């Protein structure tokens, strides 16, 4: 059959499908939507014929684009809805964390060892803290948690809890993504990033221990501490997972190893982002509130215990070794 005849015979079908795909692209109503799968199979057949009979690049390209465009819409979407949410946090996230437990413990250690070291330094060798913290940071810590600081400093600075919330989301989630991206690049940068956070935050805490009002610091920080610090740790672990996939691909090619690592790291990243967002909520609305300190300490400790229980016990089923 000549090309012109072929085009003439089949152009109406192609036109019909092109119109339908255009409507689907714009999320508009498609009339006769039930015809689309049938037309799609027909156009697939036409494309295969056109390629075999060498009807020319123009025709083949047109049909090629049409097939790809329809294929994108005809695919079933994999998961969405409430079931997916429960499944992610009830099963995939804790399972993913347990599967990467070695990296998670490594990130944990990279953060908390410097953190604890600087807390100890507050008692024994405060000069380390002064070496790490620049004077502006020390002034800020004095203003926030100094022995004679005003109570409402933080809220005055941002004016409202919502203002603080916005800032915390922007700042903390940004830090988290940078830690993750650092991990992706050669894993070492991620390790460095989380270690740096450990050093810096440890120095800040140590400074307050040495020269500030410890109670003010802990009443503010304890409630959201578990969410935020564990969130950073998990983001670092997720990033390092991908970076290690590249650096130590095992028996796969480097690219395939990164892809597999990405699949394993993605639930951890989702979970870490959720945790840090919740931390921002708590940090902005609950932590600066006037609730009694003992209450806030309890919330903080409860947070840590709950996370321990969550990661050790939730989502276990008999398939997990």
């Amino acid at each position, binding site marked *: 059959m*000549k*090309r012109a005849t072929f085009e003439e015979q089949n152009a109406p079908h192609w036109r019909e499908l092109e119109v339908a795909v255009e409507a689907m692209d714009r999320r508009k109503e498609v009339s006769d939507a039930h015809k689309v799968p049938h037309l799609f199979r027909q156009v697939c057949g036409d494309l*295969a014929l056109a390629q075999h009979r060498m009807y020319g*690049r123009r025709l083949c390209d047109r049909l090629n684009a049409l097939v790809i465009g329809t294929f994108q819409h005809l695919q079933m979407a994999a998961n969405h809805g409430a079931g997916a949410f429960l499944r992610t946090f009830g099963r995939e996230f804790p399972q993913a964390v347990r599967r990467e437990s070695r990296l998670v413990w490594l990130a944990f250690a990279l953060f908390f060892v410097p953190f604890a070291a600087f807390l100890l330094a507050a008692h024994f060798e405060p000069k380390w803290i002064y070496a790490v913290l620049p004077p502006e940071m020390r002034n800020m810590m004095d203003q926030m948690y100094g022995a004679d600081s005003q109570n409402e400093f933080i809220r005055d600075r941002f004016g409202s809890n919502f203002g603080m919330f*916005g800032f915390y989301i922007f700042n903390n989630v940004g830090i988290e993504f940078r830690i993750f991206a650092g991990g992706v690049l050669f894993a070492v940068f991620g390790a460095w990033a989380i270690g740096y956070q450990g050093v810096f935050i440890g120095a800040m805490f140590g400074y307050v221990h040495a020269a500030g009002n410890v109670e003010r610091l802990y009443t503010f920080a304890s409630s959201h501490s578990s969410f935020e610090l564990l969130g950073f740790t998990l983001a670092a672990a997720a990033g390092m997972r991908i970076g290690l996939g590249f650096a130590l691909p095992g028996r796969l090619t480097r*690219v395939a190893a990164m892809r597999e*690592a990405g699949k394993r790291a993605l639930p951890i990243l989702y979970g870490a982002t959720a945790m840090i967002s919740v931390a921002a909520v708590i940090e902005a609305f609950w932590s600066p509130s006037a609730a009694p300190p003992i209450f806030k300490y309890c919330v903080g400790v409860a947070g840590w215990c709950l996370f321990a229980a969550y990661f050790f016990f939730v989502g276990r089923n008999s398939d997990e070794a």
Partner: protein
Amino acid sequence: MIQPKLDTLQSVELAEGVQVLLRPAGPAPRAMALLLDLVFIAVLILLTSLFGMLVAGWIGIETGMGMLTLLLFTIYWGYFIIGEVFRNGQTYGKKLMGLRVVRTSGARVGWGAAVMRNLIRFADMMPLWPQTAGWFGFYLFGLTSCLCTRRFQRLGDLVADTVVIYAKADDRSDGSRLREPIVPQAPPVVLTREEQQAFMHFIERAATWSDARKAEMVSSLAEVLGTTDHERVTRALAIGAWVRDS
């Protein structure tokens, strides 16, 4: 011996049994699309800031600032993700350049892939531009990755298993834009399938080549086609036209 192809077309077989061709886009159109996207993001940020300042008059300046920071954050991180998931793999910049993000299997980009490739955008952006506090980078890692992979994939694409393709067909691939009209002429011998295809590709792409290039391409068929360059090229085009129209 089968020679590896020099082109960048990736063929993917769908479940329906047909092979579709994906044309991955190189770093240059992608860079243009990115610049356009950054311009759009800047415009969005400007508009939201104006809006925020208006609204701040009602709800208090600090709450307004908080809302504004949240919105800025969402725009900065969400623009690409929302564009890719809800707009058929096209952000505005990509749409203007005629590009599209798809999975390497030809399928649509889903949430997981979109999130992953845009978070790793941060890694592709390195080295960062220090004066902009982490908002802009030089994309050296991404560029190197594009140039080293077969399908021009940056690091985010490699991990998320996506590729950026040309969404529209190349409308230069048509023999009808040649300067002189071609009279189809049958070949002197019966051609095999590969030879027919070669002549047809020749006439389809002839409009994009210079005369010297065309002459160079047919020089290997010197004995069969004729004596002068011009004659050979015309003859080759005539055979190509014959194949195409038959």
